[in-house]
């Protein structure tokens, strides 16, 4: 992967990798707006202070995004919980993925629904593996679990997804 400091500008790099970072951030935040705030904060911190560091920039950014998301969750957790009790929950209805043309979009929506129904710990591993192309070792380090736990969660996630989607395929 191209390091951001080798890019002509942060815009090019962000245009290419921002969507995947945002998808990850959405696994750790409650709303799209929160996820965008987290990505912004992490990216600015990275660009200013960390882009000269050795190592995989995407991995550094992921750590930064997760840390920002956890900080945000701690800051607003109690308030959000109260709000959710009051308004029946904050459901993030913005799509995870770019809409597909024609009939393909129906399938995209089915996959998104199935993804949202996965347990959080399975969905975050799946997202990191599929759309961030992280290894189980890297995922384990990021989430502070063993690589085998990360691999198990990934497998369970795929099996659950297949089970959710199969009736739709054959129905």
């Amino acid at each position, binding site marked *: 992967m191209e390091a951001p400091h080798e890019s002509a500008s942060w815009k090019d790099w962000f245009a290419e990798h921002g969507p995947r970072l945002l998808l990850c951030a959405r696994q750790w935040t409650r709303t799209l707006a929160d996820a965008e705030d987290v990505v*912004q904060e992490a990216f600015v911190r990275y660009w*200013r202070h960390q882009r000269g560091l050795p190592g995989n920039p995407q991995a550094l950014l992921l750590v930064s995004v997760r840390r920002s998301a956890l900080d945000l969750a701690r800051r607003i957790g109690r308030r959000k919980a109260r709000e959710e009790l009051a308004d029946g929950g904050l459901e993030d209805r913005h799509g995870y993925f*770019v809409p597909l043309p024609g009939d393909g979009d129906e399938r995209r929506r089915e996959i998104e629904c199935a993804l949202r129904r996965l347990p959080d710990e399975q969905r975050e591993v799946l997202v990191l593996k599929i759309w961030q192309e992280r290894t189980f070792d890297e995922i384990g380090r990021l989430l502070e679990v063993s690589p085998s736990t990360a691999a198990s969660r990934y497998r369970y996630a795929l099996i659950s997804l297949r089970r959710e989607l199969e009736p739709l395929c054959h129905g």
Partner: protein
Amino acid sequence: MDESLKELEDELSRLHPARPSLAVAARIEAELALGESRTAAPQPGASVANRTRRLAWSLCVAAAAAAVTFVALRQSPSVAPLPDHANSVTRPSGAVTTSQPPLSPDDAEYRPVDARSVFYGVSAETGVYLRDQTPVQQVRYRYLDTYTWKNQATHASLQWTVPRDEIRVIPAILH
């Protein structure tokens, strides 16, 4: 891994995550530009969006405080500013309400972190006629608003509670 899971993996990887909104890129650009023009080290977490929110939040607090003062002065003719406290008014209940928050966001390192409102009473008041002679009933809703500001550097916090009365009017038939 069996074949169907592999196919599912491939199908998932063909989906492209949605892009961040254009506003995010604009905010990043503004923040990076701000960082370049600033000599002081940036504060982690102090994004432009957050600062904008804080500013809007503190404006809301100031507006709410001003509204409280306005309502108090308008609804309670006996209420008058104390001579020794230019920014304060005495409520009928005896509580002291400041018309401004004790600190502005630019003071020290304190930032607003929490605001909550407790509703504790409602009472019907006398009926009145509006200017167009519409008869209405005044209803007074009573709240206690609590604001918390925190110093990001020292983690010291500052909390104050302000009584707030909200007068609503509802259509009524007056005899």
